[in-house]
């Protein structure tokens, strides 16, 4: 990773102001209503181009003839473009913290590659974020071409992922790759690296970012363990082995109690007594759908943290999180339009 300059102690008020200005242009309820009333993907793309902040990302795009997949790629790319606009605005430079988005992309792509290797399919290229290729620590195009685990190891040789990946090299050539174990290792690496990277900010910024990042890991663990309990009725040891060993608002002992619930009903009952359960109930979210409720709660946390903070790293992290959620919302609407889902059904999936 490049280490051009440290932004840890710099005054980045202009970047914070810029982020707030961009956030002010986010999609409003009336934009979502207008998008939901669109009858075709090109209508939705046209609306975004004419009336929203995405006009910048869609400049030069022929929205009348756009393919759904292409539109989704452009929207995802806009997150990256905004990310680098913020990085470059006051020449923050890249460091362990500000690189988190690239690391996240790299890990996601490695995991997708492993899925394709296990399935024996070669269509990784279709979803490959090729626009990230000049920033990643390995060549994404080469990754998409990987035919076996040795190729994957060769491509990631000079990266921190190599040491993690080489542990899981299948004994036989072409043997099954332990995807869940690798995912856990990589996600744990990401969470710990990110938590470590915020130490340099010190004071309130470090504390709040740690809380925020830790809470995100908590919620990912809760969602995943709930799924394992509900759909596979997995036992406590099996669940714990698959969870990221980072704890923030719920201590390890309490998490163990969740994992050891008899079934999903008992899981929810125990969950309702945890910090997140109480918060969700207080906010009036549906406890029967803890996944959606936790996602909404995460969104609320990000919104609150972004609105209240004047610290550049905190704003930067939450701003990107909010931008990702907004793009996901639009993609859900576009998919809904493409597959002619009822408006009500699509709007239930929108997080605002």
């Amino acid at each position, binding site marked *: 990773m490049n280490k051009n300059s440290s932004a840890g102690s710099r005054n980045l008020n202009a970047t914070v102001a810029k982020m707030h200005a961009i956030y002010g242009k986010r999609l409003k309820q009336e934009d979502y*209503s207008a998008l939901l*009333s*669109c*009858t075709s993907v090109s209508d939705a793309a046209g609306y975004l181009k004419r009336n929203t902040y995405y006009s910048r990302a869609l*400049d*030069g*795009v*022929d929205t*009348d*003839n756009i*393919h759904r*997949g*292409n539109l989704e*790629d*452009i929207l995802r*790319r806009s997150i990256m473009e905004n990310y680098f606009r913020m990085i470059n605005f006051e020449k923050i430079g890249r460091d362990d913290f500000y690189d988190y988005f690239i690391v996240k992309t790299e890990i996601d792509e490695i995991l997708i590659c492993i899925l394709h290797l296990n399935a024996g399919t070669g*269509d990784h*290229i*279709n979803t*490959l974020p*090729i*626009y990230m*290729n000049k920033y990643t620590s390995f060549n994404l*195009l080469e990754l*998409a*071409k990987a035919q076996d685990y040795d190729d994957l190891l060769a491509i990631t040789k000079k990266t921190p992922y190599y040491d993690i990946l080489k542990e899981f090299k299948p004994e036989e050539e072409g043997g099954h790759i332990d995807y869940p174990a690798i995912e856990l290792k990589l996600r744990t690496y990401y969470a710990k690296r990110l938590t470590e990277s915020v130490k340099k900010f010190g004071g309130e910024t470090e504390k709040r970012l740690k809380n925020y990042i830790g809470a995100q890991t908590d919620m990912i663990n809760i969602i995943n363990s709930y799924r394992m309990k509900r759909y596979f009725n997995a036992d406590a040891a099996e669940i714990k082995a698959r969870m990221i060993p980072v704890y923030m608002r719920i201590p390890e002992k309490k998490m163990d109690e969740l994992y050891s619930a008899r079934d999903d009903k008992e899981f929810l009952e125990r969950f309702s007594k945890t910090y997140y359960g109480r918060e969700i109930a207080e906010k009036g979210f549906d406890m029967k759908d803890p996944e959606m409720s936790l996602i909404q709660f995460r969104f609320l946390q990000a919104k609150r943290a972004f609105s209240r903070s004047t610290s550049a790293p905190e704003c930067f992290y939450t701003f990107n999180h909010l931008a990702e959620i907004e793009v996901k919302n639009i993609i859900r609407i576009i998919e809904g339009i493409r597959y002619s889902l009822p408006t009500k059904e699509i709007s239930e999936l929108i997080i605002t």
Partner: protein
Amino acid sequence: MSSIEKMMFADIAGMDTDLDAVLDIICSCGCFHMENAAAVHVSGSKTNAKRENPYTAPLKMLAEIGTLTGIKLQKTDCSDIPDSRAEQLTEDIRSIRNRVQKLNAEVRKASDELNSHRMALEQVQHLSGGEGVGSLNVDIEQIFACKHIKVRFGRLPTDSYDKLSYYEDKNFYFLAYGRDKEYVYGFCFAPLSEAEEIDSILESLYFDRIRLPDFVHGSADDAAKALEKNVDDDRNDVESRKMDLADYVEQQRDTLNKYFTKLKKLHDTFELREKVMMIRDKFYIVGFVPEKDSERFKKYFEDLKTVSLVMKPCDENGEIEIPVKLKNNKFAEPFSMFVDLYGLPAYNDINPTNFVAITYTLLFGIMFGDLGQGLVILLLGILLWKWKKMTLGRIMERLGVSSMIFGTLCGSVFGYEELLDPMYESLGIGFLPFKAIHSINNVLYGAIGIGIFIIIISVIVNMIMGFKEKNYTRALFSNNGLAGLVFYCSLLMLLLGGMLGLNVGGPVYVVCLIVLPLIVMFLREPLGDLLKGKGFHIHESVGDFIAANFFECFEFLLGYATNTLSFVRVGGFVLSHAGMMSVVLALANMSGGFSPLVMILGNLFVIALEGLLVGIQVLRLEFYEMFSRYYTGGGKAFKPVTVNYDEIIE
């Protein structure tokens, strides 16, 4: 302080046969704030009156018509449509919607045709001299006539173009001849035997294949000419079909508006069932009505025999938070916007709008005193209110007048500080005491004096509120109570005495009027408990209590000093106005003679910049220096049930 509208609690019960009539009344009367009846009436067998709204479907069709045609449906008179015709309306709307869909499909088809020809033309133009390989002077027909090679013609998104190297082992070649920000244009050549596989690869890369119409022959230039003519014809066709759709919509506009008004009223009234509680065949509705409207409200129910309406004072209803409607006089009314912004008062609290209106107007006038510029703000306010119905316009009217009054007292007109002197001299007034530029110290002392006066008033208001609530800690012992007031005033007297060389103070004065109030503030919570008869108790450990209250008292002391000095900004803006206008005058006189243009632009600049700054600064003083002393907000707004005609369907 102006007051808060007195509310009555309305409890309505009746047989379900009259439910629709009752809902219609509460939706039309404009004075009923509805609450969920289930929160008040406790019964084991209660149910909700909500059912599927039958008016949602026709409204959705109207929304679709709106989206397809771009018309905005509006409220209109629909008294000629009886309620009994509501079902027939759905059928009428469906037939209009079907016709709109058909016309819209024709527009879309014509647009698609235009689009495909336009894209083909763009491609051909690229071929005949675009970027990349430049002009290909070949017969297009010949390219497509190849027997063993399939040729595709179109564009790839730039990201997909970057992925092409992934397919280097595949048997095809993409010849790019031009690119823009988002697309790379080109030919794709592939062996006939592998065309299917290559097509599927291209599809996964979002390749936009452009099909050339059959009539395109010859070289790229010839093809372009043929296509240009076609594009023109298509464009006319699209326009004519759009016109057909617009004509049809125009014919139906009045009907659609009437149907919308009728159905929206029925829909929104039906939605109120969500808050209606049913016990068997009896319904219960609860809510609030302003006391002044209660008699009128009662009359609506006189003819409904099965319905009983009980109105009682709000104090007898403990379960639901009482909504707040501010009662303001004409002068203060627009300033309620600022109170709303901060948060409405609770029902038993005070309404600070009058205080805000007076202090805001006065402070703005003092800080931005200019007869001419005040007049501009007044006129601008009148225009904003008349044309745009902006509440800010009404506030600007008041601020403009205040600015004019203080401008007259200061003798300032569009920056000319001496223009009014002859008028004053003719009245026998030799000098103007408020002339800012000649008495900087007086202006600054005056500003602090105003601040002290406002802070004292704020503390007194807080004390009154404390006594009203029987909260003696707030009224007597807090920094904004009697102890704080005595401490603040005594300290000020001491300082003033020192400045004027008077002998104010002495050990008894200091101990009784400064130290003692400080100790009272320090012990405010245990003293409050003592007055309530709960004894003198310290709830936490003594160490924690001392540490916490020491820092809090330190913060109070700092607060008195900073809040008072904060009002220096009032004087600062008086001076900055005079200073900025002297710069404008100097600029206007710089180019040899006098430049009216510079004077006008300078005045406009000062009005915009300083007007905005002063407006914000006064709001800051209101919220931070005054509200923080006596006002908490947090009340619930009175929202009478109405029909929302702004949106077809939420």
